[in-house]
């Protein structure tokens, strides 16, 4: 029997191994980093060590706020390891959703069945969004659970805002990968585009923070849009979150138009 959103269900259910793997990786990273905060970030020796580092380096790594629980969580989980894992996950999902499927020859068969191309892109993008949301919820819940024992003193509303921006930032890379994959039919182009958004965003932020002359780089950095005001400490910049999610949504729509307009598998 025909059932609602078969492509979404297949994309979501058939990738449970991958989703579970990334969830395990994120959990492990959080469990490794956060419980040691009281002995690292919060200690006076650590602060001395950070002070001894070149200031450019502390800025690049966002270690300038590492002495507070929220700054430490921002710098380590959201700013570095979590960002890295989530970006890799969404970029690989996004590039595989259309470009990878086309390159492997399977898209042709699916499109020969009773689906439209727009429907295909939207349902697969929705599956990606749902996975990203689930992982962001996991990160939110884990950090909240460790909040007391690791003496992080994070406000849960601020943490929620940070998780929303964290998810939006990852989605932006993922939907960029989806769009270029749908435009070109090549997985590698999609991967390159998604990685470029993630890596350049990070680099522009790290370089842009070095000097007021380079401020303009920050405006080009989605990473800075998301984390520029340290959302774990100060709560989300909702306008920035809106941009991250909004551009991602626009990229999904553009992906469906791109696929709609061209030959597949030629």
């Amino acid at each position, binding site marked *: *029997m*025909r*059932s609602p959103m*078969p*492509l979404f*269900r*297949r994309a979501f259910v*058939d990738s449970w*191994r991958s989703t579970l793997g990334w969830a395990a990786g994120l959990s492990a990273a959080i469990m490794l980093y956060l419980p040691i905060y009281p002995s690292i970030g919060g200690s006076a020796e650590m602060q001395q060590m950070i002070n001894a580092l070149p200031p450019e380096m502390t800025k690049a790594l966002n270690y300038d706020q590492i002495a507070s629980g929220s700054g430490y969580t921002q710098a380590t989980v959201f700013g570095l390891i979590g960002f890295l894992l989530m970006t890799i996950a969404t970029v690989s999902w996004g590039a595989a959703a259309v470009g990878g499927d086309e390159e*492997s*020859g*399977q898209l*042709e*068969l*699916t*499109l*020969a*069945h*009773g*689906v*439209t191309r727009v*429907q295909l892109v939207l349902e697969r993008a929705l599956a990606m969004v749902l996975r990203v949301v689930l992982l962001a919820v996991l990160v939110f819940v884990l950090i909240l659970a460790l909040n007391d024992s690791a003496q992080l003193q994070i406000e849960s509303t601020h943490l929620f805002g940070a998780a929303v921006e964290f998810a939006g930032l990852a989605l932006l890379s993922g939907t960029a990968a989806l769009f270029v994959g749908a435009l070109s039919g090549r997985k590698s182009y999609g991967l390159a585009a998604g990685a470029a958004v993630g890596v350049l965003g990070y680099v522009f932020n790290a370089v842009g923070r070095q000097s007021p002359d380079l401020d303009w780089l920050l405006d080009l950095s989605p990473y800075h849009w998301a984390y520029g005001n340290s959302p774990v400490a100060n709560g989300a910049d909702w306008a920035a979150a809106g941009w991250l999610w909004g551009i991602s949504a626009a990229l999904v729509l553009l992906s469906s138009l791109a696929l709609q307009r061209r*030959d*597949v*598998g*030629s």
Partner: protein
Amino acid sequence: MESAITVEGLRKSFGSREVLHGIDFQVQAGTVFGVIGPNGAGKTTTMRCLLDIIRPSAGTLRVLGQDPRHGGPGLRRRIGYLPGELSLEARVTGRRLLDHYEAVSGPVKRGRIDELAERLNLDLDRHTRKLSKGNKQKLGLLQAFMHDPELLVLDEPTSGLDPLVQQEFLAMVREAKDRGQTVFLSSHVLSEVQQAADEVAILRDGRIVTIATVDALRESAVRHLRFAASGITADDAGARLGRVPGVGGVEVLTAGDGVELTAVLEGSIGPLVQALAGLQLTDLVLEEPDLEESVLRLYGNNGNGRRGNGSRRREPQEEGSSHA
């Protein structure tokens, strides 16, 4: 009779390279239509246009009364399609994959999947990417046939199948035809489709060389003749056969007090039988018409026939090679 597929002036270019140069044909509803041609002739491109996977550069297409460009999912649910380059690399079992396609294009009659899997001898509980090429092909056939679509578009359906399964496939095609379904299939060798097809189009380098019924091809086809006769000299036998219309390539050997002769016959067999009637035959073999050979001559007669197969493409007989 109503036509299931109408193609008029179909052209397709990829960049500056035109691969279909204006193709016209019709497939009547309820018939089996084969398109034969070497790899690169344009068979796959034509089929992809019918399913709106690629879009024609020019020309008109009607599939089951609709333009495939605008028919949408409703039209494609009425078609079963087997791609020429079937790729099933997913980490799912065959059964889950078929369930998925049923959810998209169904409904499928209860028990139909198992019935077809049994006929094709396919294990549906194995992961698709671990299947052999032949088993993937069976799964591809199954997803095309399972919802009993009005039109089956099958690109190289017998590729990778062993002879027994090929026979089973031909039986499935005959049954589909008996049920009133239309079948449009392609092959690079005629022998794979001549048993199933009512009509055959021969495609070469993006043009249709000829469209004929299999019977008409059979009439124009060459038969190999071999006989032994006693009480006649080689020269007499050679001269006698040489006068028969349609006979060529006569070779005669003296054997004992008689001859052994081989030749090829093109056209009707009546005059040959009359010429043979006066001989004291000790052995006679007149082979089934070799459609393959006549088709290859058609490729060859039109322009520079076989030259195009060499450098740019792989050998036409090679299995599982690419074709566009």
